[in-house]
């Protein structure tokens, strides 16, 4: 089925293509998207969740365990109400949110489309990093994701 997919160059094509992936492929490509923003991460729980997502032999128990752990990291890294926002810290939060969506069991991700949650959270992580340094240039994450996805298709 994956061979039927064509290269993507915009979000409409991207969304459609992602819908055609199997559950295993979603986890694999989702982990690749998070890899691309891992330079923003400083939490070992997130790293471990992404490593587990990459492991095609990971058991359900392992996935559940890393989900609980990375969800905790996601909640702990949010900017608390009324606090002075540190956008670098907030980018860490969105990396954790992306990783949580990658390993979330069915029904545990609050987003209607968990894969799109991964995509969006990675873009938000990059966005926050740009805000942190007052850089108003275009967020390059979407283009990076198209490239990662296209390479994934070619390699599969």
């Amino acid at each position, binding site marked *: 089925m994956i061979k039927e997919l064509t290269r993507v160059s915009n979000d409409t094509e991207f969304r459609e293509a992602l819908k055609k992936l199997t559950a295993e492929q979603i986890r694999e490509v989702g982990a690749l998207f998070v890899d691309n923003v891992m330079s923003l991460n400083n939490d070992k729980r997130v790293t471990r969740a992404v490593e587990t997502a990459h492991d095609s032999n990971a058991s359900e128990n392992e996935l559940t365990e890393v989900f609980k752990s990375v969800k905790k990291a996601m909640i702990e890294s949010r900017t*608390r109400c009324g606090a*002075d*926002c540190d956008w670098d810290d907030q980018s860490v939060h969105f990396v954790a949110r992306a990783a949580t969506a990658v390993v979330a069991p069915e029904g545990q991700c609050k987003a209607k489309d968990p894969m799109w949650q991964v995509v969006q959270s990675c873009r938000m992580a990059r966005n926050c990093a740009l805000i942190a340094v007052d850089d108003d240039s275009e967020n390059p994450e979407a283009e990076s994701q198209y490239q990662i996805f296209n390479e994934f298709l070619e390699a599969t």
Partner: protein
Amino acid sequence: MSETSQATLERGVQALKEQIDSTTAAFFSSCTHCGMCADACLFHTETGCPTYTPIHKVEPMRRIWEQEYTLVGRLKKLLGLSKKVTDKELEKWQSLVYNSCTLCGRCSMVCPVGIDITGLIRKMREGMVASGHAPEGLIGASERAVEIGSPMGVRLPALQAQIKHAEQDTGLAIPVDEQGAEYMVLLSSMEIINYPEYLQAIAKIFKQADKRWTLCSEAFEATNTGIQIGSSDIAAELVERVVAGAEKLGVKTVISPECGHAYTALRWEGPNLVGREFTFKVQHILEVLDEFRGQGLIKTEGVEEAKLTFHDPCQLVRRGGVVEQPRNLLNMIAPNFVEMDDHGTMNWCCGAGGGVSANEEADKVRIKAFDRKKHQIKDLGVDTLVTACANCRIQLEDGLEIHDMDIPVQGLTEMIADHLLVSNVSKNIEEQAS
């Protein structure tokens, strides 16, 4: 912020005296000490601590009223028989007035003689600020709100970056400073920082409803820390900014976001704070969405399969009467919706409103207070929790995580946007693109 940096006991006592009017006097003189407010307060019910009895939280102000404005009190004062309010006492009271009260209003609902106890605690906070006994977290948030325009330090470039993100995701333009738009949408910093999906949901919904809306670059923040900390001056200044923005753009309606106290601050306290009627209407986003639903302007498809319940934000139901609107909206998409006990106007607070979540000193009691909500949720056995206040959402997520309850929490506006009839939205996006 001059108000907090010049705080003294003298100023605090004076501020409390200024809060005492005929209504306050009537409240203090009619309290029968029945204790019913204690059983209505989750800080009391969940800790069993009698000092958390709501009316007790305003005891220093009651003594000032008695000593200054009653015959018996004045005589006792003359004879040296009354106990003066001291700085040490107000310092001690800080945790009662801020840490263990969310201004949720439940105590006011049950008082058999009709005392607005929450209103008294709100007044008590004016004295606490003036005497220098407000929590650091709220002082910092208030300073940022006045200086930057956001309690969480969100500046316009950060909002603009989030707008770009939302535009890319939705394919829709996010209007800013659009003169003559019907609706001006406010955001809370929490939504800009933690829940960017809210803005995307607004863009999709208003596109489908075919309504003109805008953000205001000079007044995008809804949160009003002046109300939380208890400073009418700060609260008025923050409301003035919204009023100025709305009047400049000539909008008909200003929409308060999924933030409970922002709605109370602007809609119910706003005109009194600035001393004049607004030239525009103020509505909570759920009121607007329900109007759109009633007018057939938003169409949904598909349903939530999960068994879910709705947590009523206190400021919406008790202060604002927004009870039916969320249920009407959920009826469109949630066949497995179930109610908590004590839902609607007698809903139990999440435990984090009224500035409690911004106050690190309150963390322990805030999480303890969540026990009530935890039991309510456990009893229902739901798979998903929905609410309409970003602050409630944070507390619900925190509480569920601490108690190892894997239940996702979602904002109702986002949930509605997730179910918009795709063909309608797509058609509108194509029209906009062409």
